[in-house]
């Protein structure tokens, strides 16, 4: 790594650690602690499979975040395209040789860990596009070539992920990419035209959806049409959240989850359990914690000298925001059910790995915020 940043070789390891963003670090630590406690609750107040594994993953990925942070932001800039291509190859690999589970093929076994490359793509696409816009001249931002390139960068992985099938993740990847386009300066009218086109073609898109996906949309519009079938998840989720009240039912006392009424309580619906046990106060507290994290990332972005770091931080902050909004809207019945985890809180290694790498790069940007990249 030293050969890559001779210019900053005077920054010692100690100084690097000193320069870490402790607000962000403490917030992430706090979130990790909360996530372990909530996982403990989903296991019915015992240290079982999910608690153990979640803790284990945190124990590996939290240090990994620091490790990532110790690399100069220039290093991540230099490797952005390569990382994007590696993740893309992995995506292609799983679409042919991936592990199938519950009707979709999106995982690969990497000996100690089952990896979901689409989760890594959420970060890789931000890195790739951040680098692209970092290097692109302002005059060329709205040129046909550049728009074609960036749209291809977004659409290719999105299509692979949609075909797994995994609508939730593909939407998140696409949105993560699009935000960089936005930040990069693509004309606002393009966004407006695209949005109008999207709305017009929506019925057409819906006709291409798989039957279960259509059902999710119908269920979202009217959960009571099949309260024990398709509407069950969202109804039970709303009951859990609503019954939490102001201050919740208390830690380990969430009846909805304890008595198995909540589906997917470890993963996508983890917020439901948290909200049932800690109520409105806890939920808002969690949102504030997430807001602090997002705010810190934006802050780091805005002090960064390089546009790569700036774009990455702003993009990543937006991505985190989108993950949270999509997940919460889903469990609160504001959006149809699409599989999307809540960062750090949800059980799932790939998602946590990607999130931690993202935090790591952000921390690296903080440490090296004065670093300029040619």
């Amino acid at each position, binding site marked *: 790594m030293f050969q890559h940043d001779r210019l900053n070789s005077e920054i010692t390891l100690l100084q690097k650690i000193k320069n870490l963003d402790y607000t962000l670090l403490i917030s992430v630590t706090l979130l990790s602690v909360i996530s372990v406690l909530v996982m403990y609750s989903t296991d019915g107040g015992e240290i079982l499979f999910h608690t153990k594994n979640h803790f284990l993953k945190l124990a590996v990925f939290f240090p990994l975040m620091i490790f990532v942070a110790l690399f100069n932001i220039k290093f991540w800039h230099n490797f952005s395209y390569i990382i994007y291509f590696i993740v893309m190859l992995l995506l292609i690999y799983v679409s042919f040789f991936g592990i199938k589970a519950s009707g979709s093929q999106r995982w690969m076994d990497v000996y100690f860990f089952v990896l979901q490359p689409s989760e890594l793509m959420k970060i890789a696409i931000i890195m790739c596009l951040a680098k692209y*816009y970092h290097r692109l*001249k*302002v*005059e060329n931002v709205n040129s046909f070539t550049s728009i074609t390139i960036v749209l291809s960068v977004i659409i290719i992985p999105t299509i692979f992920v949609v075909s797994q099938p995994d609508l939730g993740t593909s939407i998140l990847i696409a949105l993560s990419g699009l*935000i960089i386009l*936005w*930040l*990069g*300066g693509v004309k606002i009218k393009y966004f407006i035209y695209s949005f109008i086109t999207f709305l017009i073609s929506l019925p057409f898109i819906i006709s291409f959806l798989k039957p279960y996906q259509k059902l999710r949309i119908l269920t979202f519009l009217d959960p009571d049409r099949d309260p024990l079938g398709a509407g069950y998840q969202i109804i*039970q989720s*709303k*009951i*859990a*959240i*609503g*019954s*939490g*009240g*102001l201050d919740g039912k208390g830690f380990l006392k969430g*009846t*909805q989850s304890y*008595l*198995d*009424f909540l589906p997917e309580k470890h993963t996508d619906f983890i917020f439901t359990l948290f*909200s049932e046990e800690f*109520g*409105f106060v806890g*939920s*808002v507290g969690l*949102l504030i914690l997430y*807001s602090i994290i*997002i705010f810190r990332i*934006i802050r780091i*972005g*805005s002090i960064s000298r390089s*546009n790569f770091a*700036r*774009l990455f931080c*702003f993009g990543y902050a*937006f991505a985190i*925001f989108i993950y949270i*909004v999509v997940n*919460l*809207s889903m469990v*609160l019945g*504001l959006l149809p059910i699409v599989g999307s985890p809540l960062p750090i809180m949800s059980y799932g290694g790939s998602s946590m790995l990607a999130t931690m790498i993202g935090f790591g790069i952000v921390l690296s940007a903080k440490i090296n915020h004065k670093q*300029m990249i*040619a």
Partner: protein
Amino acid sequence: MIKSNSGIRKTDVINRRMFIIGAAKVVVFAGIVARLFSLQINENKKYLTLSDKNRIREWKLPPTRGNIVDYFGNVIAGNLKVYQLHIIPEQVENFNYLLVRLKNLLNLSDKKIARINKLKAELKPWDSIIVSENLSWSQFVKINNYLYDLVGVKPVMTISRNYPFNDVYTHVLGYVSQPNEKEILNNQIIQERFVPGMKIGKLGLEKRLENHLIGTNAIQRYEVNAYGKRINQLEHQKGQQGSKIRLTVDTEIQKACRELLNEKAGSISVMDIYTGDIIAMYSSPSYDPNLFLFGISQDEWQLIRNNPLKPLINKTLSGLYSPGSTIKPIVALSALENNVIDTKFKVKCTGKMELYGQTFHCWKEKGHGWVSLKNAMKQSCDTYFYEVSRLLGVDRLNITAEKFGLGKKVLGEYFDNEKKGLFPNTKWKKNNLGRGWVLGETLITGIGQGYIQSTPLQLCMMTAQIANGGYAIKPKIIVDSNPISYEDAKQSMESGLLFDSNSDSLLDKKLFKNKKNIKIVQESMFASTNERFGTSYKSRIDDPKYQFAGKTGTAQVKKISKRERELDLELEQIPYKDRDHALYVAYGPYVNPRYALSIIIEHGGSGSKAAAPIAKKLFKLIIDRHELRNKQSNFERITI
């Protein structure tokens, strides 16, 4: 590049764009908080209710039926602890092994095993299967001894209906059993309280008083998980036992009736002549209602059903008999009241009477000679009553008879199987048979044959109303909220007024025009039992304490042919089905009478030989129990 214009411009673009989405983020987060607020604060109650509805499930337990007690408080329909055996399939390690073990321990039939397997397939694995509803104590002990080997087996103690006097009260109480769908749907209360294993009244008072006896369910609240499995018990709400019902009956007398009618088909009714309390009401043969509690076996059911003595029929209320000579007191009273005859009026009995070429026989072939009312009653002379009823006419007789309760239901509201019988008149025949009344029919009506049909309880009530001096009574079997005491009833009758327990008013219930006429009938009934040549003279009791007055009756079940009359067969020589019914009505003690009774022995032969001797045995007991009964005044008030 670093210092280039474009670099700075780019940074500006990025920052400006960031600011726009930053603002959007705040709005979106505010929206999410608003949604949280609406769910968790505004609609908290609604979702809390839904959450409780999710997790709390109630289990209703069968209600405990109210006890039915006799006049002295003895439980005649109670509840008993029973031992049951349940299997909880999910706890069983090896179901087939368990069934083999249980089969050996309890001698279960293959059919039962098949049924258990079927239930197992139908029920959820944590729902218990009832293997045996009623284990004997020794079986229960056996199961408990082997419990270590019977994983998933649960011995359970529960409550079941029990009739401690077995068949003694069957026709009064009826019995309980599992309700069918129609019974559940037709009764709101049963519908609300129904739980599998619950039993309801199927017959008699158990059925009639269902809504009072049923009791309320005990409720157990459990927390359940999403699959309906019970996680833990939250609370147990005790049910309330059904109302206790006290009857007017006396178990000792009821038991005596059963003994006296042993192996005979017939009925005995005993009534308080002032209060109308039914002291005993037994129809023989009876059957054990306990057999029906856990499902009667086919063999036992066939045995009851095919018994030629017809145990399923409540003869006291649904048995229709010709009253025979027991009607004669009413005929005499009617004639006296209508001034058709007086005590001096005499008829010469030659053993038969000719009318329009038809011969009407007296039971005594040689005839009674000249007989007055008293002698005619005493010896039950048919010729005398032919003549009297000829003079009286059936319509006037009908009026008197109906006043005394014939042709009307006695307890109507309590038993749906009660029959009202028939006392004919000319109008009835015209309306129902479309033909005119024939005088000959008046004659046979006058000796209680022909169209006339009565239930044993009607005859008992008729006798009671003669015995009390001719006042209407309202017979009852349940001690109600406003019981009338013996003294009150008697006093109000003697003062000419009757205390009506239902309307709390004193009503004139005089059934006679001239009190003297009642007295004359009473005297002639006394003579019939206590004077030489009386038809029931042999069954008399001389001790004035027990002395009673009565009237025998022998009801023909088929017309006697001339040949049979000449043969004058002994009872044993006549086929059972063709034998006469033996009847006896009586009241006592003669001085200060208190109780009336009616006895019917189906195909028992003559009333004097078969029925009257039973009265003699019974009266001693009835009178002896009187003092005890009088002391028993601690009425428990029950509103029916």
